[in-house]
């Protein structure tokens, strides 16, 4: 089925197989491999993208359902080779270890900050409840989001880059 969708501000028209999900469509048909596949069943959040302003698990959306949609993926974060403020905060606060969950984490926290520029710790936790990270223990991710929203208090004895 022919579909038209906008991904990171760029319009694409493609023929999409009915049985292909949005995640595989982004990775295989558009070559946007930043979005990862973890469980394929809506549990882990690695495939999180923003669809029409709301985060979704792209493994649970058919490509044909995204016809006419506006999609934001991790590739839309950095502009002209420069990392976004949120990405810088993730880097600076060691919110990335293996990096597999990071694209999904960034999309979930991006959507949070768009809706709520000064989220509380509780609100940050709620925003990433659908994103698994098996490395960091989440604390650094929470701090990264606090940092990106200008709310991180400086820690004593920890040298920050």
């Amino acid at each position, binding site marked *: 089925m022919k579909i038209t969708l906008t991904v990171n501000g760029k319009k694409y028209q493609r023929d999409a197989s*009915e*049985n292909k999900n949005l995640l595989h469509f982004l990775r295989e048909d558009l070559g946007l491999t930043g979005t990862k596949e973890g469980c394929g069943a*809506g549990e882990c959040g690695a495939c999180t993208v923003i669809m029409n302003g709301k985060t979704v698990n792209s493994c*649970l959306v*058919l490509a044909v*359902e995204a016809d006419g949609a506006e999609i934001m993926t991790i590739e839309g974060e950095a502009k002209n080779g420069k990392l976004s403020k949120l990405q810088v905060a993730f880097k600076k606060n060691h919110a990335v270890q293996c990096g597999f969950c990071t694209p999904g984490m960034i999309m*979930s926290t991006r959507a949070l900050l768009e809706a709520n520029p000064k989220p509380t710790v509780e609100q940050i936790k*709620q925003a990433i409840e*659908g994103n698994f990270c098996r490395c960091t223990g989440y604390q650094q991710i929470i701090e990264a989001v606090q940092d990106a929203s200008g709310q991180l208090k400086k820690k004593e004895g920890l040298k920050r880059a």
Partner: protein
Amino acid sequence: MLQNFSYQAPETLKDLYALLNKSNGKAAMLAGGTDLLVSMHNNWISPESLIDIKKIPDLKGVTFNPKTGLSIGATTVCIELINNKDVNKHYPLLVEAAHHVASPQVRSRATIAGNLCTASPCADMGCSLLALGASVELGSADGVRVIPLKDFFTGPKKTQIKKHEVLLRIIVPAEMAGAKFGMRKLKRIKGHDIAVVSVAMARTAKVMRVGVGSAAPTPVVTADLAASTTLEKAIAAAEKVICPIDDVRAGAEYRRFMVKEFVAQIYSELF
């Protein structure tokens, strides 16, 4: 890639009914897809066709009428319910219940009707809508029928929907608007998890009901209790409708204990 299937997205109920009659039970309704696509991903089911119902205007939207109550269209997603002013004002129990559903990513796709049609014993919307005495409207080419939600579930993953029918909307009675309420969902972790047990209670000047999830083959509800029912009687009524099992999440005994505990906790909030 998922298994092969054909995809159709009818724009009117008439077209939907025609497709349903043609498919003879081999089609699956696609709304949020957060359960359907998982079942297909795991090869638990393999429908020949998916009928996407999101383009049908009659199935959209949430409306409140002080005389007829709340109507939740079949394609209403959790986030829509959470953000709806009327629901927040008159049926805040549903806002709390919708918050309990999975994760933000799932809440922005998953529909309330889908949560019911999946008919999981642990459906978060199940126990809350049961406590509010909701009913469901089912439609087909032959017409429309309304059945109480308490009769809708017939077993795990089984409902009264016939193969040529579709759930059109959920109706929550007007007399439950402004009801006092409370809900508890016991999970293994604080975040995204399904219920070990869940209890939702609603009380108006006339009636009290206790809805329970994950403690029977379907979400269950007590009979309509008097608004002045004592705690002991409310607990006894809840115990009468549950029949928990031992499984990977908890033992039957623990579930039974926690249902009673939650009824006691919520009861104190209803007066």
